[in-house]
């Protein structure tokens, strides 16, 4: 009986059907609170996206998402996880909307990601790696790491929206860029990288060894790979190394 009553109750607050309670004015309070709480969670998580598309379109997208994506996690913080994908469908002609939303979402995920320290150049020096170790060395991404290809200059969009200018920033097309997000210390970071750097980083993220990536870079590319690797370490892009046992 209790399970049936609760199923009817939640159906009513989520979909507005007739429920089991004796007081409809009371049910309206639960119904309004349910929708307001979820809408507020989305508006808080996607503040820049809301600013970019405007309040009216964002509210419509939010209402659609609330109807089609009931919260499944115990934590409200997880509610917006599928919102960037929903925006990709709703704003198919404007892919920068979903890309900006994806950046917002993963910046928050990185902020609260579980703590794992960053791998530094000093850590590598102290590890006393032999030359053969470098051949087999694999790298573990930093806390909160996420990446995706983007079609627009989302970094400029983000920085433009974080200012106080009334005018929306211009939006030049990105050139086959990939957006990286991670956390260094307590601060989420992001950077757009070009196809050449991505071609070096991507295999490492997929678990290829440093030796394999270096071999793929070849004699002409090894110096550039070294520069990138130093930059990645400085940025805190990795958390640890793995060597075969």
């Amino acid at each position, binding site marked *: 009986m209790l399970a049936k009553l609760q199923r009817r109750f*939640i159906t009513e607050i989520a979909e507005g059907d007739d429920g089991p309670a004796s007081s409809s004015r*009371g049910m309206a309070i639960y119904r309004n609170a*349910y929708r307001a709480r979820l809408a507020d969670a989305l508006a808080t998580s996607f503040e820049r996206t809301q600013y970019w598309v405007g309040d009216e379109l964002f509210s419509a997208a939010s209402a659609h998402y609330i109807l089609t994506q009931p919260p499944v996690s115990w934590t409200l913080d997880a509610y917006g996880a599928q919102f960037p994908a929903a925006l990709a469908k709703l704003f198919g002609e404007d892919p920068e909307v979903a890309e900006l939303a994806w950046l917002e979402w993963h910046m928050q995920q990185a902020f609260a990601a579980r*703590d794992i320290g960053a791998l530094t150049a000093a850590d590598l020096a102290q590890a006393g790696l032999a030359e053969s170790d470098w051949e087999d060395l694999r790298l573990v991404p930093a*806390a909160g790491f996420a990446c995706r290809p983007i079609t627009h200059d989302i970094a400029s969009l983000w920085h433009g929206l974080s200012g106080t200018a009334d005018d929306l920033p211009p939006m030049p097309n990105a050139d086959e860029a990939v957006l990286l997000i991670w956390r260094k210390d*307590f601060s989420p970071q992001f950077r757009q990288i070009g196809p050449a750097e991505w071609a070096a980083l991507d295999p490492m993220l997929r678990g290829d060894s440093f030796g394999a990536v270096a071999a793929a870079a070849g004699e002409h590319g090894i110096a550039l790979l070294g520069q990138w690797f130093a930059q990645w370490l400085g940025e805190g892009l990795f958390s640890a190394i793995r060597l075969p046992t």
Partner: protein
Amino acid sequence: MSETISSFTGFGLGLRKEHHALFLDEAQPVDFVEIISENFMACGGRALHTLDAMRERYPVIMHGVSMGIGSPHGLNREYLDELKCLADRVNPLWVSDHLCWTGLPGHNSHDLLPLPYTNQALETCIANLLHAQALLERPMLVENPSSYVTFAESTMSEWQFLAALAQDSGCYLLLDINNVFVSSVNHGFDPLEFLRAIPADRVRQIHLAGHSQGPEGMLIDTHDAPVCPEVWALYQRALDRFGPCATMIERDDAIPPLPDLLAELDQARLAARELV
């Protein structure tokens, strides 16, 4: 669960991020702070670092909103494991949650939804609480929520339900005086009858909060306003009945400057002194 929770008779505030720096920069005149457990679960980064620093300065109470002890589907194991992990880290004065359900498997409302006060619901809550208390290795406090509907299926009152729950599960009670008042107005019962039926030896904490006016004379537990005179009066009656008890001002929205909340807390201290 035979363990007990000793009385703790201080005055505290719900810790909100707007005030984190003030609590850490200088010692504030509170005997404890209460955190929302979920804000610090399954995460790392600055939030947990701040909590660790807070824990060094103030006793901490963990107050949850997501356990859903009224769920006939049982408790979410992932949630319980995360809660246990946080409790082990914080070593709180106690862990509390609400007499409610929050959703079904696959559909969470993220709200404190009302239960019918039936034997089946009571057995469900007892079983879930026993499970949670065993896993957490400590007795819990259970809070009375505000509610906006009643159920024709109910066979007992909320206060009878709470008293039975405390007796049969070994839990303690967190009495939210504002919630007693809000529900008494919404459902037309005597709040003093509620207080009289609560077993005094099980009450370990009191929440005080504000509410707002809802439709058609109903009150809504919004926690966005100062404690109203009627709730202060009811608090005095609660002190008469339960004696000195850990008391907290709970504000979740329209967060005012910290001195405003400390002034409200002083009003609670004054009420307790009048008791002496």
